[in-house]
């Protein structure tokens, strides 16, 4: 949640200010997390991190390749078989649904990635995603609003769980096709906080990597289960967590990940119990996109 500043961008671009600095300061201008602005398009990796992602040492990578060659080939064979003999789903009726994530075994819960701002030195919140006694996934932890004193971070307190990316054989990234469905169904119970559902897509170019589509899910608190239905048209475009002026419809054919974020401003413990997440087709939902998508005559920034 580091703040981004236009002011800073302009300052670092002008050559004059660079020359005024001592050579010691020079390093701080070039590669610092807070020097980055939203107006810079370059992304180093798909996670949007400044640092390089860890890579396996070559020796280990080679070893793993040979070890996994058999199972991966088998997977590849199955994929090809499915591609040539499997019958594709062409349409679904009203009310048909497909469960995409269930948490009825510990493995499915373990495969989700849990992040909190503590992991990125952005605060002191903690989070955990565990398999509960009721055979559900329990997303719980503590949201701490205390801002670290680094002079850059302005807000703190978030926790997130994200689904594993669909993978094909040989470690290739894959994607899901949601285009037959038009709403998201969730069975959950929470503690009265709002949570944000975040959908990510498998984009090719780096300017799109951090595009996410989000919509809040409101919990009522208490011991009763909630069945939440959110039309996919309601999801709004965000980039780097900021809502965008130019809205786009969720590209349903290249869905990559689904996450749930707890980042409301209430400090304290949070808990959200999730039973399953499904997709449904509802013929009564005719909206393509819930927000205005008109274009300005001169293609300038809308709003």
């Amino acid at each position, binding site marked *: 949640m580091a703040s981004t500043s236009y002011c800073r961008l302009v300052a670092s671009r002008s050559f004059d200010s660079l020359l005024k600095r001592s050579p010691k300061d020079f390093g701080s201008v070039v590669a610092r997390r807070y020097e980055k602005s939203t107006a810079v398009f370059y992304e180093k990796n798909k996670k949007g991190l400044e640092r390089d992602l860890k890579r396996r040492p070559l020796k280990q990578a080679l070893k793993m390749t040979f070890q996994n060659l058999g199972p991966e080939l088998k997977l590849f064979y199955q994929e090809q078989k499915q591609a040539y003999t499997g019958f594709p789903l062409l349409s679904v009726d009203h009310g048909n649904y497909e469960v995409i994530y269930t948490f009825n075994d510990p493995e499915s819960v373990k495969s989700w990635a849990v992040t909190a701002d503590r992991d990125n030195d952005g605060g002191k919140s903690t989070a955990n995603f565990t398999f509960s006694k009721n055979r559900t996934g329990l997303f719980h932890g*503590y949201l701490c609003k205390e801002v670290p004193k680094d002079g850059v971070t302005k807000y703190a307190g978030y926790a997130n769980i994200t689904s594993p990316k669909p993978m094909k054989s040989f470690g290739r990234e894959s994607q899901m096709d949601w285009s037959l469905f038009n709403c998201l169904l969730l069975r959950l119970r929470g503690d009265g906080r709002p949570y944000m559902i975040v959908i990510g897509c498998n984009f090719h170019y780096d300017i799109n990597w951090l595009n996410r589509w989000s919509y809040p899910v409101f919990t009522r608190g208490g011991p009763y289960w909630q069945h939440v239905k959110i039309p996919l048209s309601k999801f709004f475009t965000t980039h780097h967590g900021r809502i965008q002026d130019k809205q786009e419809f969720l590209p349903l054919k290249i869905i990559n990940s689904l996450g749930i974020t707890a980042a409301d401003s209430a400090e304290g413990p949070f808990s959200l119990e999730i039973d399953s997440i499904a997709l449904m087709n509802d013929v009564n939902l005719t909206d393509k996109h819930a927000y205005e998508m008109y274009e300005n005559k001169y293609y300038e920034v809308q709003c």
Partner: protein
Amino acid sequence: MGKASLRAGFCFSALYRHIQTTPPALQLTQKCANYCHRKFFLMSERFLSHKRHFHSSVILEDREQARHHKTDESLKERALLDKTGNSAVEQRPTSDLTTTEQVRPPKPVIEKTESSLPNHDPGRITEEQRRLERKADSLFQELIESRGANKETFMFAVKKFVDREGIYWRGAVEFIYAGMKEMENFGVLKDLDSYKALIQAFPEKKMIPRNAWQVEFMHYPRHQQCGIDMLEQMEHNGVIPDEAFGALLKNRFGGEAHVTRKYRRMLYWLPKFKNINPYPIPMELPTDPRQLALLALRRMSVDRESQYNVFEAEPEEDTFIASAQSPTQQHLIQQHNTEQPLFVEGPYPVYLRELRQNYFLLRAEPNINALMKKKQQEKAEENDENLFEWTNFFEDEKSSELRPILSVHEQDDSTILALSITGTNSKASAMSWVRCLERNNPKLARIPILFKIQTSAEAGQVDWGQQAVLGAPTNGKDFRQVALF
């Protein structure tokens, strides 16, 4: 060439068209066009008549000579000045190439951790800026001491600043940042009027960009960033700006600046998201804990028939028990087997926006027979084998067939029988709640009840009756704090 330059002029004007043309921007384009025309005419004249060309060139030469003379004279004057008096003090060589470096006073060293304002490079904070910050801070502190921290004082502080700095508007950014920081002390964090007052610490008209370049390259960047930060603070506190706020902003930054764009964005999105919560919470929560407890209970219980009661404790103790139970739940207790125990669990947290309360629940083990029956019925509905076993309309349809097998309270993990929020969240209060429930549920006295009350060290970890496993062991510190709260 003339044609090309004309085309260039046209392109420029087309470029400008996408931003609302302010008068200065228009002037600039016109000037450009005029210049092109004049050059074009000069050239055509040159081609048309040799004589005139000669004439004009002569004139040009004359002009250039005159200019040279002028510069010479000015040089002479300067030399004279140097000779007459203060030349010894400031001997400046005329050539630019040999300028001696000016000796500047050393820059004050300020540590990075000392950075005071957000979004500003700590290395570039000057001593003057720090002085202005201290001045702004002290203005607020003095007024808090003399008048107390309230909305009127805050308004007065802004008025005092405007009166004092109304001419040069020195330290406006520092004042506004100090004001933003102090808003919580003054209790005006969610008050639109105070934000309207605070934005008036910026001068009017001075910072309005005059052309497209100024707009895009962040005219008055520190001031605009300050404005953006202020709007973000409003956004975080759920304050939606109105037209009057926009007018104030437009008078200061113009209609196209980045701050104003942020304002327009907020005006577009925030009202859209204002009412999307299907379980709404009032903007201003009541201060009475009983009302708050009832609000949370109403939000939690799904049964519309639920009855809400507030049981008061003895007059010496100022505590209460708010309870929610529906007739269906009473009926379930009445039907409960006296050999099987009921459970009181809690306290589990429930939030009303930023406010946290804890609730207890009375529950029974799930009704497995009924659940199995429901599962079977669902399976039968899905099954296609009995597709042709239609019931014809001569058969009687029993009304009990349409009734749902399970009530909303009978969930597959437990049957919920009552909910409560108590003033103290203690085990004693939970026990007295059960005694209160016995008035409407006489059978409760005969059913064994187990209390699964979390100790204060664990409080806050909701696990629906399971052992909590939490991330890092250092967390314990946080949770103990919570327990105190």
